């Protein structure tokens, strides 16, 4: 009786697994796909090596003035390096820049825990980020109290101003958005009409016209003798504009709450405000966090428009430095740097909102 000897399994045929099969399936499944692959590969071959050469291999990194960029034909990253302070802080007083750094640090301190699963008191940190943080950072950046010297807002600029505009815009728009969304779903016809008109007007016009309005019309609306700084005027415009968008996002959340929840609250004897604040809004706001992050991304990109009314955000700082006659032909480098800053923030946030969406995709789904 022979003992059964197990033979080693044969390797799968080359045509169904391994790199050749991968190429066959993913790149050359049909004649059309083969042609497309070849065209795409040729285009990439034509584009990528020159771009890499320009951006990395032939680029100038060392040195600290324009002459350092004469060395080779590649990108002049020295320009970005020497102007990094201006791109980050604008004209903010150099001796006081630690205050901006501290604000960045505080911002990181409240944001990083939001990305970590199971971080203790995550919710409370989030609430603090929306309530206490703006006040602390506001005092820190403006100064004038606690022995901190006052820093004029017209010296603010760069990345810092972009962050200030977008954060203040979103934090201030949140309560207005909640009120408008509730008003739009109110049973009182006049309240509903007012809210719908407000929301639709702001959503129907471009942000530029809102900023123009804030900068040229707002001073006319105020009683004589009142005057707002330019930054504050822009913030008012952005907040109005953003609260309309926020209201629509929150309305989506309110509509997703089943009617049973409203009825349950009413049957417990809760009045309108208590049933909204204790039962409906906590659920609705949780549902729309991804939507809020998405509006935040949109606002973050839209803050670049303030350069049209003369505020110095990060794009405006780049725009102001590339016309410097000492540095010639560095516009591409400047724009790529600014684009990279925006891309990192926006891409990170959109990934975050996608992850949240998957995580929160529970409950009310039927």
């Amino acid at each position, binding site marked *: 009786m022979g003992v059964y000897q197990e033979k080693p399994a044969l390797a799968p045929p080359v045509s169904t697994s391994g790199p050749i099969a991968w190429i066959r*399936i993913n790149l050359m499944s049909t004649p059309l796909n083969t042609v497309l692959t070849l065209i795409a590969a040729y285009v990439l071959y034509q584009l990528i090596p020159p771009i890499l050469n320009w951006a990395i291999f032939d680029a100038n990194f060392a040195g600290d003035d324009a002459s350092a960029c004469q060395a080779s034909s590649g990108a002049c990253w020295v320009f970005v390096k020497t102007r990094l302070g201006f791109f980050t802080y604008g004209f903010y007083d150099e001796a006081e820049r630690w205050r901006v750094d501290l604000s960045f640090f505080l911002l990181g301190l409240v944001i990083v825990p939001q990305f970590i699963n199971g971080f203790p008191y995550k919710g409370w940190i989030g609430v603090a980020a929306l309530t206490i943080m703006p006040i602390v950072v506001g005092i820190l950046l403006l100064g004038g109290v606690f022995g901190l010297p006052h820093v004029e807002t017209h010296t603010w600029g760069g990345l810092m101003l972009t962050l200030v505009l977008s954060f203040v815009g979103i934090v201030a728009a949140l309560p207005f958005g909640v009120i408008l969304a509730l008003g739009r779903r109110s049973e009182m016809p*006049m309240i509903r009409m007012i809210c719908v008109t407000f929301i639709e007007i702001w959503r129907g016009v471009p942000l530029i016209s809102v900023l*123009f309005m804030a900068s040229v019309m707002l001073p006319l609306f105020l009683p004589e003798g009142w005057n707002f700084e330019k930054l504050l005027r822009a913030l008012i415009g952005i907040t109005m504009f953003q609260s309309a968008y926020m209201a629509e996002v929150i309305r989506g959340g309110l509509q997703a709450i089943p009617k049973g929840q409203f009825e349950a609250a009413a049957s417990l004897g809760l009045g309108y405000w208590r049933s909204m604040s204790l039962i409906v809004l906590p659920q609705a706001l949780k549902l729309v966090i991804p939507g809020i992050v998405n509006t935040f991304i949109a606002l973050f990109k839209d803050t670049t428009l303030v350069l049209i009314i003369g505020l110095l955000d990060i794009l405006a700082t780049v725009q102001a430095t590339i016309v410097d006659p000492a540095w010639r032909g560095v516009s591409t480098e400047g724009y790529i740097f600014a684009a990279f800053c*925006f891309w990192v923030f926006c891409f990170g946030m959109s990934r975050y909102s996608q992850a949240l969406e998957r995580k929160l995709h529970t409950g009310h789904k039927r």
Partner: protein
Amino acid sequence: MSQNNTDIATKPKQQSSVLNDPRVRGVIFQALVAILLIWFGWTIFQNTLQNMESRGITTGFDFLSNPAGFGIGMTLIEYDETHTYGRTFLVGLLNTILVAGIGVIFATILGFIMGVARLSKNFLISKIATFYVETLRNIPLLLQIFFWYFAILQPLPPPRKSLEAAGTFFLNNRGVYVPDPIAGDGFGFVTIAFLIGIIATIFISRWASKRQEATGQQFPLFRAALGLIIGLPLVVFFIMGAPLTWSIPALKGFNFKGGIQILPEFIALLFALSTYTAAFIAEIVRSGILAVSHGQTEAAESLGIKRSVTLRLVVIPQAMRVIIPPLTSQYLNLVKNSSLATAIGYPDIVAVFMGTTLNQTGQAVEIVAMTMAVYLVISLVLSVIMNWYNKAMSLKER
């Protein structure tokens, strides 16, 4: 028990104060809000009047008939310095509509291509589409406009050293020069033939679908439409003796004469607007196609329907239902974003009206209100059209 019942029955219906009745409260609350709003509006109105008086700004729309006194680089209708501010408004409006209209078409085409490409089974193609979408939609539009305008188009060579293609197309730092078609005598007939072709196609398509419903026979509609819309005008064109000449741009001195000059501002704005919006449209198209359940494709396959026909008659009509509503809001965004023209000096309505005209006349309230009204009307019209289209495409339940 019975005692209680009679107790309740004998009690007056309205026990608590009238103020606790939600309806009464609603009326009082609304009245308060109305009073507050009217007071707020009145205060602003009074302040504005006072401020304008103290700054010596005139009010009213009389300025619209005053001569503007400034030129505009690109006009679709006749315009020069002697025309009125009202005319300026119209020029800006037309320029806005031009760039937004062409932008919507380009963005739709590119967006659909990219959305389908991202779903392609071809690894390279889908990765390129993903890279495109993720890069462009995460960078502010204004930055992209600046990039195309200041980093790409402005450093181009001057007119004398233009880049040229076939001696008829020229590209330099003053824009693109293309041949200008000049219609000769009898070209009107070609236009009429073209219009007749379109109208005939509409009637034939109605007749064909009626016949197909009645008899099941199909009509080669596509070929018929091609023949009517393109073939018929071509035949008329040659019968009339080809009444069309081209004005080809040529270098005269320091600049080009003849042809059509397309401003670099226009190119940069159009390019940035369409590529940016296309990234968003691509995502909408992708999610729309993914939303059509796989069972639909399988059902079509099991009925023996060809793949191309499945795509045209089963997948796309269902995907369109998901795609149209967000597509509408992207179109609206594109129109609103075209206002960024002012940043690079393309003479759109914001640049010439809310910019130059406002600076010259100082009538901020009227001008800002008019400009905002223009965008509101465009938004309204566009959403009415898209809602109508959505209704036509929506699920017809019987």
